[in-house]
């Protein structure tokens, strides 16, 4: 009995640093956020308890729904591009050779650039007056007038921003896929080759099922990243036109800081966190099913 208790204390001592870390940096901030969401909490005035009013306000706030639905739409549009595009690039660059390794590096380089920096870069590339993209299209005779890429039409803005994001992050999925594809045992693919399977049959029947865990992981990361999209929209369109390209996090940011409504911002953040949690659970269930 004495020994068991001692073992438990020893075990607790081992996990204590991690436990303290999680309590301080995850549990406490989360609890604090929940507490804030129940208050009229300005950044510069005394907080006042208002119960669930912030949540009621959020659900009846038209801009909240506009931002939320736009975020879901953006996520639904960009995720397949990142997954399929990343996987195809991985298939192209996975075989071991110098040229392919160099290509992998080139595609991966934008991943290490900050999203804010890359958004600013693309903002200037897409600029109507100063941007090189319109210049090239005009010089090639593909357009007669400069295209108003950002902030005028929601569809065009979304396309332009998605292009910049794909350039920025597609390399991340590709690298993970390359690792997964290279981990597929050679004897399995060779066996399918002996059985007369063509290239796409090998990919579809052998490689893809064996790399499905990675596909689901990249999907999960991509979905979470897209639901939390902020920098690119803040910098490139600021939510325009008519707030049709304003994301949920952008709305959270505006309320929390410039509007000084920290309590309302906390409530919005919690709603977003629950949404992300729901997506994560679905993804994890799918992952387990694919494993079984």
């Amino acid at each position, binding site marked *: 009995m004495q020994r068991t208790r001692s073992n438990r204390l020893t075990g607790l001592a081992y996990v204590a640093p991690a436990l303290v870390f999680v309590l301080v940096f995850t549990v406490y901030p989360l609890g604090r956020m929940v507490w804030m969401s129940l208050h009229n909490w*300005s*950044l*510069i*005035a005394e907080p006042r308890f208002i119960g669930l009013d912030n949540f009621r306000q959020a659900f009846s706030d038209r*801009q909240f729904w506009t931002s939320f639905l736009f975020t879901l739409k953006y996520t639904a549009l960009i995720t397949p591009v990142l997954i399929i595009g990343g996987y195809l690039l991985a298939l192209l660059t996975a075989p071991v050779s110098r040229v392919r390794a160099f290509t992998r590096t080139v595609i991966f380089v934008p991943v290490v650039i900050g999203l804010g920096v890359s958004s600013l870069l693309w*903002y200037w590339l897409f*600029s*109507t*007056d*100063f941007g090189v993209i319109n210049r090239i299209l005009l010089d090639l005779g593909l357009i007669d*007038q*400069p295209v*108003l*890429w*950002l*902030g*005028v039409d929601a569809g065009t803005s979304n396309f332009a921003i998605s292009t910049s994001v794909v350039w920025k992050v597609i390399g991340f999925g590709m690298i993970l896929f390359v690792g997964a594809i290279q981990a597929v045992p050679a004897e399995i693919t060779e066996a399918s080759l002996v059985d007369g399977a063509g290239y796409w049959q090998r990919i579809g029947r052998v490689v893809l099922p064996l790399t499905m865990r990675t596909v689901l992981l990249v999907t999960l990361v991509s979905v979470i990243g897209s639901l939390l999209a902020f920098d690119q929209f803040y910098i490139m*369109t*600021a*939510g*325009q*036109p*008519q*707030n049709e390209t*304003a994301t949920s996090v952008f*709305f959270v940011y*505006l309320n929390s*800081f*410039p*509007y*000084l409504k920290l309590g309302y911002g906390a409530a919005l953040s919690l709603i977003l966190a629950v949404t992300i949690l729901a997506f994560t659970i679905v993804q994890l269930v799918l992952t387990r099913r694919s494993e079984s």
Partner: protein
Amino acid sequence: MRIRQRVALLTVAVLLGAAGCSQEAEAPESTAVAATTGCASSGELTMWERSGGNKDMVDMLVAAWNAKNPDCKVALTYIPHTEMVGKIAQGIASGQVPDLMGMDLIYAPQFEKAGQLVDLTDRLTGWPELTTASKGHMTVATFEDRLYGVPLYADVSALFYNKDLFTKAGLDPAKPPTSLPELRAYADKITALGGDVKGYYLPGNCAGCNIFTVGPLMWASGAKIEAAGPGDEPLVGDGVKQVLQFERDMVKAGNVHDGDRTENGETFHLQFGSGKVGMMGTGNFNITLARQQNPSMQFGITLLPGMTPNSSASFIGGDLVVVPKGSKRVNDAVNFMKFLLSDDVQVEVYAKALNLTTRADMVDNKYFKEEPLVQDVAKALTVGRTPYTLTFFEQINSPQGPWLKMLQRAYYTDDNLDTVIADAKKEMSDIAAKS
């Protein structure tokens, strides 16, 4: 029991002693002393200021103070413009505040109402410099008849016009437009030059640029824009609809570049210097920029007009110097304010570097006399105003706010203007009602 009583008594004594000590420590700073332009006590003063286009000028002001006061130099920290409000709020909440700070004047009423700035009324009362200090700054530095700061620098809006294009279009470069109908007629002629030239510039995706340059057109036409607080009606007066119609007609007539629709403020300051715009509402900061960008371009400056001839207005923006609650050096912060408003600094620092003086009576100085453009733009100080509201960002400055929504619907759609104004009015009133 006796021990408990002793402990209790000891605790009370310690607390009383601590309270007494803290009162003694506060006493020197809470007493209003006659302000000077020098140090009240020695040791470094900490100051926060937002980063931005006026950094060079603030650096010069601080350098001038530091040269005069080596025993109490100001240590300046720049905070990114977009993080300033959050940073100040965090500082106040944690008690980690600087001794003084520059604050975007538009946010001052919010902080004054929340009791987060030191009331300087008793310390500043009777200063002759304040009678001529920028009206817009002094308006927002005041809350319920108490004064919380003085101007740090001023940005005013005015109409810049390209004299070269005026001449080419057969217009007299010495006679800029004095009313909006005249401005429209001039713009038509300049646009008719063809090529890549347009008569006018309209920032289509920038709330702040529009309140700075289109807001004054409404004020000059007798309108009111923002709701000051709960129950106050926004967007009052025929001038609102007249100006929206004017801008819509300008867009439809092709007097603005298509690309202007995407302007979110990033390239606003580069547009006039491109030489492709006949007339544009912009700020005094554009004088130097346009010259650097296009040295051969001849241009002039006039006040932003309204619907009737010779009506004019301007937006007075910029920063205030304020003292956050918790500052340990209030007397020195006040001395720094006295220094900023002194005749010598107004002329030898502000004016010498061709920045606007923050006192109207200092405009008539030797440096401005040599630079007519600065003299022209300085006239804006006399007709300018600064909106006063506790929810400026939500109502006006936000990219998601009703002001920009209203403007974009007016500029780029055929929606009924009465409906457009009514929608914006309701949204602004709702925001103000919660302030």
